């Protein structure tokens, strides 16, 4: 990674700056509580004591980074996976919803885009609704989806996966419509001179042309699916999952718990995006498009 693009040093620099700012904020935001406590107990507080105290509160306004990682360590490595307090357990619940929603969103998105590209009526009628669907606040519609699906007998994983689907199909439709339309006139004319059938035109030209677009939108979609899965856990009174952990944490003022769930969610998202990226490189590499001219497209 480092040798190829020289990205590592800039990324680490930014990370170091963020962490530094974070710790300044920790002291700044948690200090009032410390001064308040000191006043109540009539203790003189030195600056040094104050600073070290702000990083060891039980319910800080903003927990320190090391507190969050300590909590993550305690609830992953030191807990059994089956425990209700294990973050791996909760992450797995959310991940399974994410993956199911992502797969459904992927299939739905690709099918819709194929329809939109091949059918004028669908292009005119479906596309505006696809766009409208994303203007509805997901937080408002999520409980409705859960309630309605529960009423017709779906519970557990499926309703939550639908919400992940709802968020993830959109980038795929938009990306794939563009991708399937990306062949230029000469490439299309060429197929016509061969009197190619519609399915030959699709599989030998449109589909391979759309691959760079597909993987770029899959990266966006998989992250959106995770957001959908977490949001789906919030209003439904879910007892397990990263969203449920965040919600429970906010009920009891457990900021460290919220942040640790948040960090794990971010790690899961990064992992998913990286996996899709590896798949992207593999597929485009097999299509001979990762060197020279092709690389620019693949990086997009």
């Amino acid at each position, binding site marked *: 990674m480092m040798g190829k693009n020289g990205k590592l040093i800039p990324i680490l620099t930014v990370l170091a700056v963020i962490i530094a700012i974070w710790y300044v904020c920790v002291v700044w935001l948690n200090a009032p509580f410390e001064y308040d406590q000191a006043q109540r107990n009539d203790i003189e507080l030195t600056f040094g004591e104050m600073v070290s105290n702000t990083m060891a509160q039980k319910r800080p306004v903003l927990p320190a980074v090391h507190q969050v990682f300590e909590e993550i360590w305690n609830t992953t490595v030191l807990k059994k996976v089956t425990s209700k307090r294990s973050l791996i357990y909760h992450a797995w619940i959310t991940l399974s919803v994410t993956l199911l929603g992502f797969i459904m969103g992927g299939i739905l998105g690709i099918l819709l885009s194929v329809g939109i590209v091949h059918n004028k009526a669908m292009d005119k009628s479906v596309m505006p609704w696809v766009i409208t669907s994303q203007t509805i606040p997901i937080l408002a519609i999520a409980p409705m989806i859960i309630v309605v699906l529960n009423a017709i007998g779906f519970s557990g994983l499926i309703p939550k996966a639908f919400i992940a689907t709802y968020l993830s199909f959109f980038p795929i439709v938009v990306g794939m419509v563009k991708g399937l339309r990306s062949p230029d006139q000469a490439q299309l004319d*060429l197929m016509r001179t061969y*009197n190619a059938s519609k399915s030959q035109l699709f599989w030998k030209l449109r589909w391979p042309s759309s691959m760079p677009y597909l993987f770029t939108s899959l990266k966006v979609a998989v992250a959106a699916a995770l957001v959908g899965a977490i949001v789906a856990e919030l209003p439904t009174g879910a007892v397990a999952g990263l969203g449920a952990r965040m919600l429970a944490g906010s009920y009891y003022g457990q900021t460290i718990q919220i942040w640790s769930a948040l960090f794990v969610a971010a790690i899961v998202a990064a992992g998913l995006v990286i996996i899709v990226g590896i798949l992207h490189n593999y597929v485009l590499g097999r299509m*001979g*498009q990762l060197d020279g001219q092709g690389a620019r497209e693949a990086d997009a």
Partner: protein
Amino acid sequence: MSEIVISAKKLSLVFPTPDGDVHALSDVDLEINKGDFVSFIGPSGCGKTTFLRTIADLELPTSGELQVNGVSAAEARKARAYGYVFQHASLYPWRTIESNIALPLEIMGFSKAEQKQRVKQVLELVSLDDFAKKYPWQLSGGMQQRASIARSLAFDADLLLMDEPFGALDEIVRDHLNQQLLELWARTNKTICFVTHSINEAVYLSTKIVVMSPRPGRVIDVITSTLPKDRPLDIRESDEFRDIAHRVREGLRAGQSYDG
């Protein structure tokens, strides 16, 4: 003398545009015989590419009659009567050279063994046999265009339609490819329709030169070349060559003045 491959009678094509109709082709009468090498020359907008595309059934004529191999252009296309070479090679970037050349064969349902044999054969014909496994971007522009010619030859149609295939290449490469194209034509005895901007190229290659002029696109002159079939590059220094080039130039000038 021989059988007619393309016959156009009073062929017209009008493109409706917001600024009014554009007469891309107006009353074009033309006959092309089997084995002819016909060049279409004229300034841009004279309808030479449009005429080629009409033969290929990529454009629909507004009026008039057009027959390719004795049937309509659409039927000829469905019978895969011609190979088309575009101005830009338009190779599919995700396919290797050999796989690009195999594309029409796949679509037309040739067996795997036959595909392999034909790809090998046409790659040798355009001397690209060492580049079979390369991707298009690994080749120079001239090589890409040769690959696209190989692709159009792969299914062995008797008619070859070429739309300014060497227009984007430098003159040295162009000379070389012109020579190769003549050799190929002599060997395969195909009928070739060739659109070009270059008077030299047209005179050097053709048995018949169709001079066209714009607005509306029409045929000004049809010149039958008196040059022998065997043409070394230095034939371009001969008086005969210059005479034909002169007549082409006159035709182009006449087309201009007609325009006002």
